[in-house]
Every structure is written in C-alpha cells, then in structure tokens.
C-alpha cells in the first residue's frame, strides 16, 4: 500500500501547454502546492500551432511578457487571401496595435513553464499520465507509467486528444467532423527577404489567412505567419473531408505552397521543420462536461477554440487561469465536489471565452452544409469578379457586368441562391444576437 498522504499535493495539472501552465502558475502564486505533469522532453516540445499569441490574454498571466518572453514578431498586418485555382484576391489591414505576436511554441511554452517554476510550481517532464485514479466516483489522482500521484484536484489540460476526459466519461470520442487536422512547415528565410516580401520592418510581422486554393470546396483554412528569420505556412482541414476525399494532408500543403500567390513569398527558403497537430472544431455544442468531483477540464481538452479567428491559446490561458482561481477557492473551503468546482463553469460563462464560443455556435453547422457554396463557388466568384473588373479586352463594360450577374443565377439556380442568402442571414443573426 502506497502512502497516499506522502505523495499527495493540492493540485495536479496534466499538460504543460498554455492552459496547464496558466492554471499552475495561478495556483503557485497563491501559495498552493501544484504539480504540472508534461509528457514531452520539455514544455512545448510536443506542441504545434500557427501562430500568434494574443497580447491581452498573455498579459493577464505574464504582465511583463513583452520584454521578457521569447517573441518573434509583433503583428502589424492581417491579410485575407481568397485563392482561386490560379488567381487570388487579397484584403489587407494594416495597424500596429500590439494585439498579437508570432512565437515559436518550443521556446514560448518552455519560457512560460519556467515562469511557473519560478513561482513555485513543480514541473515533471517526460512523464505520460496514462490514467486518472477514481475512487467512489471522485478523481483523486493520476497514474503515470511509473508512479501514482494523488491530489485534492486534478486539472485536465492535456490538449485536443484528451484521452483522460474521455476515460472518465466527461466526453465522448471525437468525431471526424469535429476536428481539423493541420500540417505546417517552418521555412527558413533571411530576415531582410521576409521584411521585403511582406513589406514590414525588422520586428514587425504579418499574418495571412488563406481561403480556397487547394482547399476549395472543403472545410479548411490556410495560414502564414512571419517569424524573425522564418516563415510558417500551414493548413487545417476537417478530418472527415480528408477521409472522404482520400487526401494526403501534406500534398494539399504542397499545392498551397505552389499556388502563384503563395510561391513567391517562400521562394528560395529551406525547410526548417515539418509538423502536424489537430485542432478542435466542434465549437460550443461539443464542449464536454467541464467539471466533476475532483476534476476540471481546460483549454483544447475542453474544445475551447475559436476557429474562424485562429484563437486557441488565449482561450486556453484564460480557462486555465479561471480553473486555477476556482481551485484556490475550493482548497480554502476544503470542498472539491462537483458543486464547488462548478464555479469554474460560471466564471467561464462570464468571460469572453464562453461568450465567443456561443457567438459562433452555428458557424460550423452552416459551413458543413453550405461549404460548396461558401468555400468553393463564391470564392471562385470573388476572383472571377476581379478578373472581369480588371480586364480591358474590348468587351463593353456593361455587357460584362450583366454577364457576371446572370452567371450567378444560372450557375447557382434561384433555389440555391435563396438558400445561400437565407443561410447567411441566419448565420449573421446567430452571431450578432
């Protein structure tokens, strides 16, 4: 019989991603004993994202991160590229608003974990939690490959796959339509070349959100981010689409890299690292049960991702922080019941995290049904419009305009057009009201 008291701590957090670290550091700063268990060689070594972190949320946990953390570039430009097969229309918005920074997860997560250690959290790396220990329906600890650890509260911050939330029935298995598989490449390029191609200065960064191209007709999005001396390019496609269409994700990425709009941006670069990761896409309706006796679920494990905006780390950080604050109250009250921990759920509901999840609750339903319209036909049509608008081929303009307008009616048909408009109105309504 193991001596449980000896191996017992206040809180165990599984996973040292943004959600787990935010939870751990919140507890450590309040003087609670917290152990963060991470399966990777170091925090961040198993983690992949786009990506950019959002200043507002990071500051809530790390007020001085802008001077202390390993950051790549400060975002000053957002581009939205609508790709046809061979053409593209881009909308670009430029403002130096300090809203986000590109980072490298292997460096940034590690830095955050070091900060948590400095605050007094214990970080156990290279250790996989295989199972939760449940007694009388209450989670009382975790089983790793070698040992058992016990705690009053266990926080599941184990990411999108969250085998642990599934083990104790907080959620069902993920369906292929509720998750996107993403592949990405980090491509090394000279700093000066990046500055030139993206029209930015040394510390400035640009983001490109990509629609269409090789993903035309599929529920998928592409992305590019600039790092100090590398550029990230990747795409994420809903898993059921890949399964159905018999696509190899890296071949789609290769096609994207060869698109005439994208290829010049990465030309001459060398591949630094290839990676892949899943992104939760189920949205509000697929959020699992967030609390039970002795346990809370945070971050990707709770499906807290706002896909349209590529926001995940901020929802992870804030959900982790709120779970940490709840755990502090529960420890002070010595009450680790589901009822006590459900304060986490209330806090989450009051924060932007759950409000944003609710705002987009219908987005993916609509997109799944109307993807042939919104992620294929109209994307092509945007480009077709500009092709027409920019052509000087001797055809009178008015004739061109009418031809273009007529084509929409003949291509789509009145009924489909009506359905498209209806879907848009319904969607916009659900977002705004």
């Amino acid at each position: 019989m193991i001596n449980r008291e000896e191996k017992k701590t206040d809180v165990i957090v599984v996973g040292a991603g943004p959600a787990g670290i935010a939870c751990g550091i919140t507890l450590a700063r309040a003087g609670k004993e917290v152990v963060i268990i991470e399966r990777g060689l170091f925090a961040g070594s198993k983690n992949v994202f786009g990506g950019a972190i959002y200043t507002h949320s990071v500051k809530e946990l790390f007020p001085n991160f802008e001077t202390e953390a390993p950051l790549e570039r400060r975002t000053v430009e957002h581009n939205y590229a609508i790709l046809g097969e061979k053409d593209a229309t881009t909308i670009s918005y430029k403002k130096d608003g300090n809203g986000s920074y590109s980072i490298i997860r292997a460096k940034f997560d590690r830095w955050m974990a070091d900060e948590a250690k400095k605050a007094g959290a214990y970080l156990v790396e290279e250790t996989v939690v295989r199972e939760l220990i449940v007694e009388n329906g209450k989670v009382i600890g975790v089983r790793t490959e070698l040992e058992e650890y016990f705690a009053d509260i266990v926080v599941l911050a184990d990411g999108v796959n969250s085998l642990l939330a599934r083990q104790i029935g907080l959620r069902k298995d993920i369906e292929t339509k509720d998750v996107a598989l993403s592949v990405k490449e980090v491509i090394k390029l000279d700093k000066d070349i990046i500055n030139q191609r993206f029209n930015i200065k040394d510390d400035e960064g640009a983001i490109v959100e990509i629609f269409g191209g090789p993903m035309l007709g599929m529920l998928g999005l592409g992305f590019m981010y600039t790092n100090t001396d590398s550029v990230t390019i990747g795409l994420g496609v809903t898993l059921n689409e890949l399964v159905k269409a018999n696509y190899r994700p890296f071949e789609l990425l290769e096609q994207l890299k060869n698109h005439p709009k994208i290829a010049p941006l990465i030309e001459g670069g060398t591949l630094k690292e290839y990676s892949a990761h899943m992104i939760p896409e189920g949205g509000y309706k697929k959020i699992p049960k967030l609390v039970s006796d002795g346990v809370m679920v945070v971050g990707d494990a709770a499906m807290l991702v706002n896909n349209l905006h590529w926001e995940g780390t901020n929802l992870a950080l804030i959900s982790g922080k709120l779970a940490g604050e709840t755990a502090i109250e529960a420890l002070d009250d010595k009450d680790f019941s589901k009822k006590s921990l459900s304060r986490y759920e209330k806090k989450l509901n009051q924060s932007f995290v759950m409000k944003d999840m609710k705002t987009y609750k219908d987005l993916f339903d609509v997109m799944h049904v109307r993807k042939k319209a919104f992620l294929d036909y109209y994307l092509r049509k945007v480009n077709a419009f500009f092709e027409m608008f920019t052509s000087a081929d001797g055809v009178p303009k008015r004739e061109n305009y009418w031809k273009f307008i007529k084509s929409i009616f003949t291509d789509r048909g009145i009924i489909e057009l009506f359905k498209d408009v209806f879907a848009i109105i319904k969607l916009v309504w659900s977002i705004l009201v």
Partner: protein
Amino acid sequence: MNIDKNLYTLKYSPDTESHLVPVKEDCKLCVSRCCTYICPAGVYEWNEEKQELIINYENCLECGACRVACEKQSLKWEYPKGTKGVTFKQG
C-alpha cells in the same frame, strides 16, 4: 510526394515497440483504410501480400488523427513513453 524529406527535419527518439496497435482482423475488412492516407507522416502502408498494415510508428507525429478517423474505431492508440517519440524544436 515523398514525406521522408519532411520527416528528416524532426528529432525522434524511437521506442522499441509500437504505440500504435491496429486490430488485424478489422484492417482486413476495412474498406477505406483511411489511416494509410490521412496520416501526416505516412506511418501506415498496406501490405497486400501479407494482408496487414506496415506501421512505421517511429515516424509518428503524435497528432491522434488516425485514432479519431479509424474506420473500425478499433485502433489502439496511446502516447509513446515520456522519454520517447517526436520532439518539435519549432512547433
């Protein structure tokens, strides 16, 4: 397209046994064998002669997609041991 040149950019510490274990009988009856194409690391190949999967588990990126997508929902999938598997230096 060959994915190997991409995988060369990664740091791996392979285990001696696979953390991915399919149910052989299920794979024989599986229609899509989707694991052989959706995997971002090309871990699974179908061996027609032996009627079984070849599993290059040491190339796995630990994304979990094959587990979610498995047609028979029977792929036994777990994380490699704490000291094993892939390490991303960028992410």
